[in-house]
Structure formats: C-alpha cells, structure tokens
C-alpha cells in the first residue's frame, strides 16, 4: 500500500466547506434527536440487554454458526463459509456462472464494501448496481462511503446531481431533491425488475431458524430479496444471534441510535428460500423457490472472537453513532480513516479485518475522549480496544521512535526535564512572552502556537517550592496526603499546584511530595508501549511507598485515571508488583472529588449566592474516565462571589487530548475555537477547569482570541477564596 500523508488528507477535508457544513450541522442535531427517539425508554437497560446478549453470543460463536448453517441447510439454502474476501468473490462468480446471472442488484452491505466485492463483477461482464441511494451515488463517484449509515453525507445536492447526470446522461437540476429521488426510483426500478441476483448483507442472523434481518428505510432490501430469482446473503460471524426474540434487543436500539428513529421504515426477516415469480428463458412466467445462498464471512472475525478484548467488537451493530458524537470524526469525516469503516469503531474493525499495520495509520485519530462509550448501544469500550491494538502493534513493531525518545529523555527523567526547561525558560521563551503566555514561537515550533497561545514555563517549578510549602503543614494533620503533580502541574502550572497544597492544608491535611516521582506514563502508554509504561509505574509506586501516605492525590484527571486504573492492569503476570500496584491504586484520589468530600464533612459545602459569572468545562478524562462532574460544580457553588453558568456542550473535548493537540494542530484548533465560542456565549469572566491539559488548551485559546476571559483550575478558584 502506498504511504499516506494523513496530515495532508486531513487538511484537505478541513478545507472542504460542503463537508464541514454538513458535519457540523449533523453533530449539533444528532444528540437531541437521538434522545428524542428514546423518549419513555430506559436506555441503559436496553444497552445492557444488547451488550449481554451479544457478549454471550460471541462466547458460543462456533456453536451458533453451526446451528445457523444447519437451520439454513434444512430449509434448502446453500451455505458457504468464506475465509476472506477472495473466497467470497470466487464463490459468487461461481454462482453467477452456474445460474447464468447477467445482472445483479445489491442492498447496502458494509461487509461487501470491506472486501471490495463489486470489483469482481466487471471482469466477468456482470452488471452490478448498488440500490441504496447513497451507495448508488457513491459507486458512481467511485468513492468509498464516508459513514456507515449515511454514505454520502459529505456531498451536497449539487454534487449529488452531478452523480445523477453521470449515470442518467441528461441534465439534473440540483435544487430539486424530490425530483432526484423520483429519477433514482425510476432508474433503479428497472434494475430491480431485470436483475437475476440480489445481494444483501444482514443486520443479524438467527441461529435457531436461519433467518436474516435487514433494517432499511428505502425498502431497497425488500426489493432485492423479492424480485430477483437468486438471493445471496453476505453475513459476518459477528451478526449471529441465538433466537428470533433476541432480534428485539438489536431492533430497539439500532434505529434509534443510527437514524434517531423508533424504527426504520422496513425491518425484514427472510428465512430460507422463499417463492419467486419470473419469466423463464422461454418467456413463460414461472413460480418457484428462489435460490438462496448464505456466505458466512470470516476475514479475521473468528480470531477476534477468541480474544477477550477484541471479541467486544462483536457487540457492534453498525449504527455508527460512535462517529456521530466523535469530535474528530465530525471534523474530518470518514474518508481520512482510509478504509470503509471509519471513526473509532472503524479503527478497530480495520485492525481486526485488515491487520494491525493498517490500523496503525489512523489509530491516532482516536483521542480517547470516551464520548462514544456513553452512547454505543453495545457498550463497547472503543478507546480501550484501540489502546489494546496500539499495544499489540508496539509489541510487533516497537514504539514510534520520536515518541519514545521524547518520553525517555524528557518525561521519564525529571532531572533532565528540569534542566531543559529551565534553560528554555530563561533563554528560549523570553522574547516571545506576553504576560503568562507565549503567543508565538519561532521557526519549526510556529505550528504549536497557531490558533492558541502556550503557557510560559513556571519560573520556579513546583518541586522547588515544596520545602517552603511544607512548613505550613498542620501540626496535628487529619490525613497525610502525598501529592502527585504530573508534568504540567510541576513545570507549567506550578502556581496551581501551590494552590492545591493550600486548599489541602486548609482542610487540615499534611501534604508531602515524593521527589522521585516521574511522569504518570500516559504519553508512552497512549502510544501502546506498555513495557516502558510498566517501568514508569514501578518508579512511581516505589517513590510513593516510601512516604506512607493515607491518600495519593492528583489534580490532573488523566494522571489520576492512569495511576488509579491503568496501573492496576499493567501487572497481570507479576504477582509481586500487582500487589504493590493494588495498594498504591487504592489510595489514589482526584483533587476536586476529595476536596468536595472533605468540604461536606467540615460543613463548608454550602451554597453561596451570586457573584461574578464563571463557567465550567468538563474534561473528558474527568467526566467519562473518572465519572466526576457533580463535585466541581458543587465546589463552585460553595465558593463565595461566583455564580456558575453552564456552557453549551460543556463536556465536549477541547481538542488538547494529551499530545494530540500538538501533533494534529489543524484538527485541535477548530475544536478549541468551538469551545472558546461556547465559553464566550455564557458571558462568564472565568472558565474553570479541573485538568491542566484543558487549562493549557482553553487558556491558550481564550488568550489568543483576546477574550479577556481568565482560565482557572478549580484549585486556583478555591485557594483565592480561602
């Protein structure tokens, strides 16, 4: 495969105004429309039912497949198990030859896109037509679908009209959508009527009776399964379910999540060969059983089924809702993902079906914001599976050189980092500083300050302030709190770290700072290098064991999540370190939730009335990683002189997402701009965050846009009012 220039492709898509307009409008409307379709339903209960059913199905996938096959054979259907795309193509061409097939109609099948099925017909002089309107247009354009449910969402009506003109050979005005629909109806009707063979995918396949289910709005699948004398089904193993009644568990979620409908116009179950009428070679109308062929597609699926992490991909029902809420997908669209499946789930499916090498090319495009995990009908932990795929890739190929060098030299070695920064701080940034921000960086670093200012390096890192601060520790402390600063809070937001200490001390806590602590390890774990991550974890665990604290506290949600959750998972095969990690992890707390708890205990959590407006941004790792979003709001509410006003999309990613914001500045800045606009619209004087990475991004955006709005960590806000 040719080497791709992902950044270039992204830049092109960001400049595609038609696509940008369509996607941003869709992203804005989708969440509300989806919720509306669920009115009166217990969404979480429905999701859990679907997850459990699919989870159970994959545990028995071989049995289900055997049952499905046996059911179909009993009913007179031919069943073929295809190892890969080539096997499917060979088999279908063989059926075509045996049955004198000249014309084929298809209803939408992602599995057929996955194996590029349509390519095989041309060389055998067989006419094939997609009949889903979007797929039909895309096929004419020679493009790939940019979305599983809305394949042509990236085109406007005029671009669609061009596709019509190309196919119909006459002028088609783009203004008149209903006219275009009728033209397609007329043209495709003849395709349906004349076709010898219909090919469909399947939304599910039922083991107990061999039925397949098709969910469509246009009704094309009903025609594809009704008019031609042959029906071919291409179905992946992941679509198999045990019983007819299990279909309900899919059907109650798929239309609601996919197209915000309670049900699509047509839900069709076809079981075995059904009757068909057609004119035979002599022109006589005959009624007979339709020939049905069912192809079970493997293409990596059966191997994935055996893996406890990857098998969760079987919970996917292809609703594409994970794309609809993905802050990256809704900016760059589906094509940059490079294969037919896009978005976070697309990265996973591509990794499983096309191999981890293909996956690696665009795995960067998942920033781990976890928004998708809140709506996925099958409750797939998409970012976690991507993490696992990254880690397997790194096991095979090693970590990306630059990331690893940076990490080892800088983040993992505090002494080195310290020196480097001091030098940069005193020399490098001086000419570019304006107040607390760097608005422009010279030469090759210029990209980093395009669209955002960067904070200046703290003149005195937090580690150098510890001795002075610890003198103010209470003589009879309630608890001994060991502070884990993380990189940002040590070297950039050292003042904020100082405020963390002040707030804790005001609550009667003794604060200690193990000086040997390193980076939490997230940057290297994030690229999939677990070996390096383990070394870092050991360093931190050992450093904190020495101080014997009651609580290990961090004011960075990403660090907290890594220390609290990831460390637990790193030592599965190492009992000694697993035990040490468990003891460590059990003490880890996030700043605002810990402080909120102590405020309540000491009677400080009381509502205070009115004051200057502040707004709060939910960091992804804070809200969806740690589940903390009420506590910071309660703390703001208890802070005198300020009043909380909520911003639109308060929990949408600000675009920093670790190093993503630097690496993909072109994607990060539009996300930031949206955030800045939403903050400005509240009229707040201050944007409060609880995450240093968000603080860097949002603070930089608010400064660059010269809004005059301040950005504060919740610790800053609390410390000011002590």
């Amino acid at each position, binding site marked *: 495969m040719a080497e791709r220039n992902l950044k270039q492709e992204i830049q092109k898509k960001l400049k595609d105004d038609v696509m940008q307009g*369509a996607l941003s409008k869709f992203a804005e409307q989708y969440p509300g429309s989806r919720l509306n379709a669920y009115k009166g339903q217990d969404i979480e209960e429905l999701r859990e039912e679907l997850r459990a059913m699919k989870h159970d199905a994959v545990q028995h996938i071989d049995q289900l497949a055997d049952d499905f096959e046996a059911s179909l054979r009993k*009913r007179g259907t031919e069943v073929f198990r295809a190892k890969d795309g080539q096997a499917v193509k060979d088999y279908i061409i063989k059926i075509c030859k045996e049955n004198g097939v000249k014309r084929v109609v298809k209803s939408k099948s992602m599995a057929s896109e996955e194996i590029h099925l349509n390519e095989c017909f041309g060389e055998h002089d067989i006419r094939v037509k997609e*009949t*889903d*309107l*979007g797929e039909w247009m895309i096929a004419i354009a020679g493009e790939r679908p940019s979305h599983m449910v*809305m*394949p*042509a*969402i990236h*085109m*406007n*009506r005029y671009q*669609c009209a061009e596709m019509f003109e190309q196919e119909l050979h006459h002028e088609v005005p783009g203004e008149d*959508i209903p006219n*275009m*629909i*009728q033209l397609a*109806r007329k043209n*495709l*009707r003849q395709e*349906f*009527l004349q076709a010898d063979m219909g090919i469909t995918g399947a939304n599910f396949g039922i083991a107990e*009776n061999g039925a397949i289910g098709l969910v469509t*709005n*246009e*009704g*094309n699948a*009903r*025609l594809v*399964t*009704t*008019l031609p004398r042959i029906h071919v089904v291409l179905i992946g193993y992941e679509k198999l379910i045990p*019983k*007819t*009644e*299990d*279909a*309900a568990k899919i*059907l*109650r979620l798929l239309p609601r999540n996919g*197209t915000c*409908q*309670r*049900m*699509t*116009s*047509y*839900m*069709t*179950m*076809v*079981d*075995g060969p*059904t*009757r*068909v*009428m057609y004119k035979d070679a002599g022109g006589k*109308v005959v*009624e007979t059983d339709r020939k049905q062929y069912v192809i079970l597609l493997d293409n990596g699926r059966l191997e994935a089924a055996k893996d406890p992490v990857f098998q969760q991909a079987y919970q996917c029902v292809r609703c594409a809702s994970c794309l609809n809420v993905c802050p990256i997908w809704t900016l760059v669209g589906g094509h940059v993902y490079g294969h037919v499946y896009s978005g976070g789930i697309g990265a996973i499916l591509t990794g499983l079906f096309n191999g981890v090498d293909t996956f690696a090319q665009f795995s960067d495009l998942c920033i781990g914001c976890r928004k998708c995990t809140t709506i996925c009908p099958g409750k797939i932990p998409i970012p976690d599976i991507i993490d696992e795929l990254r880690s397997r890739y790194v096991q095979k190929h090693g970590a990306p050189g630059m990331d690893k060098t940076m990490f080892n030299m800088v983040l993992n070695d505090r002494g080195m980092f310290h020196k480097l920064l001091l030098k940069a701080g005193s020399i490098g940034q001086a000419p570019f500083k304006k107040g607390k921000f760097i608005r422009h960086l010279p030469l090759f670093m210029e990209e980093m300050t395009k669209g955002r200012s960067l904070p200046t390096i703290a003149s005195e890192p937090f580690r150098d302030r510890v001795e002075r601060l610890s003198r103010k520790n209470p003589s009879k402390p309630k608890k001994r709190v060991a502070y884990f600063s993380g990189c940002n809070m040590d070297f950039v937001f050292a003042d904020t770290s100082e405020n963390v200490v002040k707030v804790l001390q005001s609550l009667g806590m003794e604060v200690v700072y193990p000086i040997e602590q390193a980076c939490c390890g997230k940057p290297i774990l994030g690229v999939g290098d677990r070996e390096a991550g383990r070394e870092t974890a050991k360093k931190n665990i050992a450093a904190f064991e020495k101080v014997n604290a009651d609580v290990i506290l961090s004011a960075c949600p990403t660090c907290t999540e890594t220390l609290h959750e990831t460390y637990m998972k790193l030592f599965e095969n190492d009992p000694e370190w697993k035990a040490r990690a468990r003891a460590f992890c059990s003490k880890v707390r996030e700043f605002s939730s810990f402080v909120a708890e102590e405020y309540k205990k000491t009677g400080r959590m009381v509502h205070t009335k009115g004051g200057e407006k502040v707004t709060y941004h939910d960091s992804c790792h804070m809200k969806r990683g740690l589940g903390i979003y009420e506590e910071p709001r309660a703390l703001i509410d208890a802070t005198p002189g300020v009043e909380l006003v909520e911003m639109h999309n308060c929990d949408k990613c600000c675009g920093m997402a670790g190093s993503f914001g630097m690496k993909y500045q072109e994607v990060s800045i539009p996300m930031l701009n949206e955030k800045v606009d939403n903050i400005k619209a509240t009229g707040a004087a201050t944007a409060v965050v609880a995450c240093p990475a968000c603080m860097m991004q949002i603070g930089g955006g608010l400064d660059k846009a010269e809004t005059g709005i301040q950005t504060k960590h919740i610790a800053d806000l609390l410390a000011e009012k002590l």
Partner: protein
Amino acid sequence: MEKVCRDWASQAFGKGMVKAEYWDDFEVNAKAAAAEIFRVKDFSEGEAKLNELLQEYAPKEIIAVGGDENSAIKNIYDKIAQSGRKIYTGKYDIYEHRDSADIGISTAEFCVAETGSLCVDNYSYEARVTSMLPFVNIVFVNANYVVKDVTVACKIIGKVFNKGYVGFVTGPSRTADIERVLSLGVHGPNKLLIIAVEDFEGVR
C-alpha cells in the same frame, strides 16, 4: 396465499400479549412515521373509506392481496371490480401488473405500539410486490391487535417463524441520503394508508 402462519391470533399471540388498549400509542407513533390512519368500526365502514381513498388517488390499476384469507375483504375487492376499476388479485395477474399498478392493497397481522409499526406476513411473492411496488399502499389491520413493544412483537414472531418472510413496515419508504433532507417514496410506496377495522373478527 402462502403465509408464515395461517392463523396468527390462535397460534402466535400468547396470553396478554396483544391488547386493544395499546392502540393510542400505536396511532401516535405510526403518524409520527408519516403513516395515515383511518380507524373504522367494521368492514362496511372500511369499504366506504377505501372507496374514498380510491376516489382521491384515482388509480389506473390496483393489485390486491388478502381476499383469500378474509371473506369481507374479498367481498370488497369483488365490488371494486364490479364498479369497473381494474383490480388484480390472482398471483399471475399481480405479477403482470406489479410495475404498472399505482395502488397496492394488502393486510397486516398486528400493530406495534412502541414504534408505530405493522407486522406483515409476506411469505408470498404477491404480498411483497403488492405492498412494495405501487406508489400507494393501503393496509387492512385488526384495530384490536396491538402489542406493546418490539420485544413482544419479536416473541410473537419467534413462536411461528420457521421459514419465509416477515417484517415490520413503519410508514412509507424514505431516504435522507441527499443533504439529510427527508424524502418519501424512494423505492417503495410514498404513502402508507392504514385502515384499522375494529370488528375484524366478526366476518371471518
């Protein structure tokens, strides 16, 4: 006409699964899916409603199924034929006129309240082309046969679905593939007109 189940009411409907009281929800949700609904007391009112609709849509040709299973419906088709309209009810006739007919009249087994769907038993080829190819699909259904949700509907289907073709029809054929603008009648009917008859059983 070949069917998945000869008698859904006695073979598939379990105790307490099908209730007239779910009607209101069904009506709201079916209308939200752009179906038009006419609730009538009996088949004589149903016939009058159907004639009204035929006046309104002035079809050149009609294809129709369901008469073999219900004498009242057969009676209505016979009268339409006597009135001079072209109505085809035999399967070979339906085959010949499947693409030229502008109205298809068919039947459904029960209604699903949660989604406003009709559950259709479409084992036969003629039932499928009748409900899918013409621009208008008129459907007779028993107004008392309503299930609460898709879960119950799938349970019912599961009891009798051994081979063939069943499904839900929820409003007319639609697409939003061009600029996400909703357009009806892309491949199937652009009108779904439901005549729900309260006294459906009386004439069986």
